[in-house]
């Protein structure tokens, strides 16, 4: 065992560290850190934040492309894009495959040939809506050539906006499917009701978010007002400018490597069973021998049942009694064996199984919260060190902490994943018993290695290194850098295991998993506005 454990802490007694392996990986990893190997396929930002202010600019680019491509006015381009859910490529595909006329007809776009009709109007015009003779200055002609008095147009627009049809307000003429020019709508409505005109503008702008599969509102509560636009795959996790991290596909918290379906089932299950299960899981655990619930308050992680069975509080597995504060001899944690509970009936087994995974999930999310509090104390430690150290580069501390957060997250969500992956049939993964067992062993080995190293990293990050002499700080620095590299690699391997070994291609369609982000979730970047340079 490495001497890393000399300053033992109560919540880590696992050790899967293998010396030979580590040296090789550490040197490989150091190289990787120094050369900052960029992640594959990151050409430009893959997600951008759209604020109230940049919403207009965000759609300008798409509008401009369509306006240029088809020589259309802005409101027609918008009508077209709203119909095709702001998918410019789709518009082009339809244009190529079906032609312009079909493209326009499907979207209800009517292109006029009456552009200079208004100049030919007589001084007085009969509006057939109000049946009134009105002066030519009091009428408006739309692109389709249909002319009515401003009063009637305004009434028509107000009714339609209030009906929530801002995005497609049609001409009043019978059998005319032309969409009215938004500039004309705006000027007429604002003369009567400026508030409604603003509402109209907002509806139009927000269509870019609400009718667009690449853009979604940030799910923050209270709402930050932002939306996120992604480049390609909707199965990704993003961080809004407001700081909220979420799954772009299902809009719940970031949950990779759990699939959206698994996460949905898991959160529902946690809710349904929270009252009963929470109390039980916090205070008691079933004995692996007699299934009696055993109560623990404080003390080490070895508990004893009245039947005499000793077991591990963290994983519930049976153990011997020989133990130290940090380890139980001969015991490795995290493996849940279904046949342990052979004597219990099915329903109870399911609950126990759930409790097992729920405990591990909760233990890690709790650790995550504790570690998040480390952030402040670490900053203090750094400033202490800065006062007296010759080397002023303490990026290894913050990098180490970031690595701890990221790998802890992966670890937490790997438990609900495992619950469904190797569980009953609620997600219909259809495996033979043997297949499941092989896969479960494979996965749990990876998971345990990650677990062990995350705990180790957590331990190091908690050390009072600001009080260490310089050479010990240097030693800790190397350990943290090495461990960071190892946990990063293990996270990556865990994802590879899921995608290559556990789920086949058909299952991966149902269970799309947001990719591992070695550098943390991508913060949505400020919108880059390209249309100005192109125009």
């Amino acid at each position, binding site marked *: 065992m490495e001497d890393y454990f000399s300053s033992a802490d109560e919540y880590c007694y696992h050790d899967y560290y293998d010396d030979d392996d580590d040296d090789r990986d550490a040197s490989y990893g150091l190289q990787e850190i120094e050369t900052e190997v960029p992640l594959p396929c990151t050409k430009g930002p893959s997600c951008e934040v759209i604020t109230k202010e940049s919403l207009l600019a965000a759609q300008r680019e798409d509008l401009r492309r369509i306006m240029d491509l088809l020589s259309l006015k802005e409101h027609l381009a918008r009508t077209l894009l709203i119909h095709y859910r702001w998918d410019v490529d789709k518009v082009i595909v339809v244009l190529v495959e079906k032609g312009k006329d079909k493209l326009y007809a499907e979207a209800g776009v009517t292109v006029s040939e009456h552009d200079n009709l208004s100049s030919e109007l007589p001084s007085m015009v009969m509006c*057939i*809506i*109000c*049946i*009134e003779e009105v002066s030519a200055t009091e009428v408006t002609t739309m692109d389709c050539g249909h002319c009515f008095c401003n*009063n*009637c147009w305004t*009434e*028509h627009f107000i*009714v339609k906006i209030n009906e929530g049809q801002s995005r497609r307000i049609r001409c*009043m*003429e*019978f*059998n*005319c499917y032309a969409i009215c020019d938004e500039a004309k709508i705006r000027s007429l409505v604002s003369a009567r009701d400026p508030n409604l005109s603003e509402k109209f503008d907002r509806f139009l702008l927000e269509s870019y978010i609400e009718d667009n599969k690449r853009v979604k509102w940030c799910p923050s509560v209270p709402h930050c007002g932002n939306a996120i636009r992604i480049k390609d795959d909707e199965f990704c996790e993003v961080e809004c400018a407001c700081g909220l991290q979420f799954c772009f596909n299902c809009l719940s918290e970031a949950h990779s490597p759990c699939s959206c379906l698994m996460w949905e089932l898991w959160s529902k299950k946690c809710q349904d069973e929270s009252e009963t299960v929470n109390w039980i899981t916090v205070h008691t655990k079933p004995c692996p021998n007699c299934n009696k619930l055993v109560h623990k308050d404080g003390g080490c992680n070895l508990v004893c049942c009245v039947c005499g069975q000793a077991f591990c509080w963290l994983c519930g597995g049976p153990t011997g009694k020989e133990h130290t504060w940090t380890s139980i001899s001969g015991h490795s944690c995290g493996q849940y064996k279904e046949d342990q509970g052979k004597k219990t009936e099915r329903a109870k087994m399911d609950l126990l199984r759930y409790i097992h995974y729920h405990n591990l999930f909760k233990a890690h999310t709790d650790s995550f919260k504790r570690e998040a509090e480390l952030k402040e104390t670490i900053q203090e430690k750094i400033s202490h060190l800065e006062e007296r150290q010759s080397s002023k580069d303490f990026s290894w501390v913050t990098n180490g902490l970031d690595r701890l957060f990221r790998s802890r997250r992966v670890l937490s969500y790997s438990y609900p994943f495992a619950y469904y992956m190797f569980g009953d049939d609620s997600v219909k993964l259809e495996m033979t018993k043997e297949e499941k067992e092989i896969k479960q062993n494979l996965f749990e080995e990876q998971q345990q290695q990650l677990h062990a190293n995350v705990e180790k990293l957590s331990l190091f990050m908690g050390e009072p290194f600001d009080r260490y002499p310089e050479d010990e700080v240097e030693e800790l620095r190397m350990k943290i850098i090495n461990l960071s590299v190892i946990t990063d690699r293990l996270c990556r391997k865990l994802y590879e295991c899921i995608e290559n070994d556990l789920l086949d291609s058909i299952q991966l369609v149902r269970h799309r998993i947001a990719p591992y982000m070695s550098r943390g979730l991508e913060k949505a970047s400020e919108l880059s506005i390209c249309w100005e340079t192109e125009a």
Partner: protein
Amino acid sequence: MQASRARLFKEYKEVQREKVADPDIQLVCDDSNIFKWTALIKGPSETPYEGGIFQLAFAVPEQYPLQPPQVRFLTKIFHPNVHFKTGEICLDILKNAWSPAWTLQSVCRAIIALMAHPEPDSPLNCDSGNLLRSGDIRGYQSMARMYARLAAMPKKG
């Protein structure tokens, strides 16, 4: 609302003037309520409804003419697009294809056109719709004529 009232008043004056011009339609406004109208329309020639006089009831909404009036037959009629019991009419211009450019008078004209050209694919009266769709034009016509004679024709002698 003022706009709808003004417009209905204009239509009223127009109707008075055009009475002679369109002998097939007789639109009458309720004495006390300008939003309630009735119309008498002549069954179109060369249809089973020929010779009949059919009464329609209009309920005009306050948003008129931005929203369509509600129209139904008061006279019993056997027609695939008219509900046999309630007299409700299934006609696109009275729903999503409505345009404010329509008037009560032009709606009457559209209904006369519908009597001459039924739409068996959106039937409110399933029996007549089925007769027409199964190609039993003779069956449909005789039923329609029978009801027209019973309900829409002045009793002779």
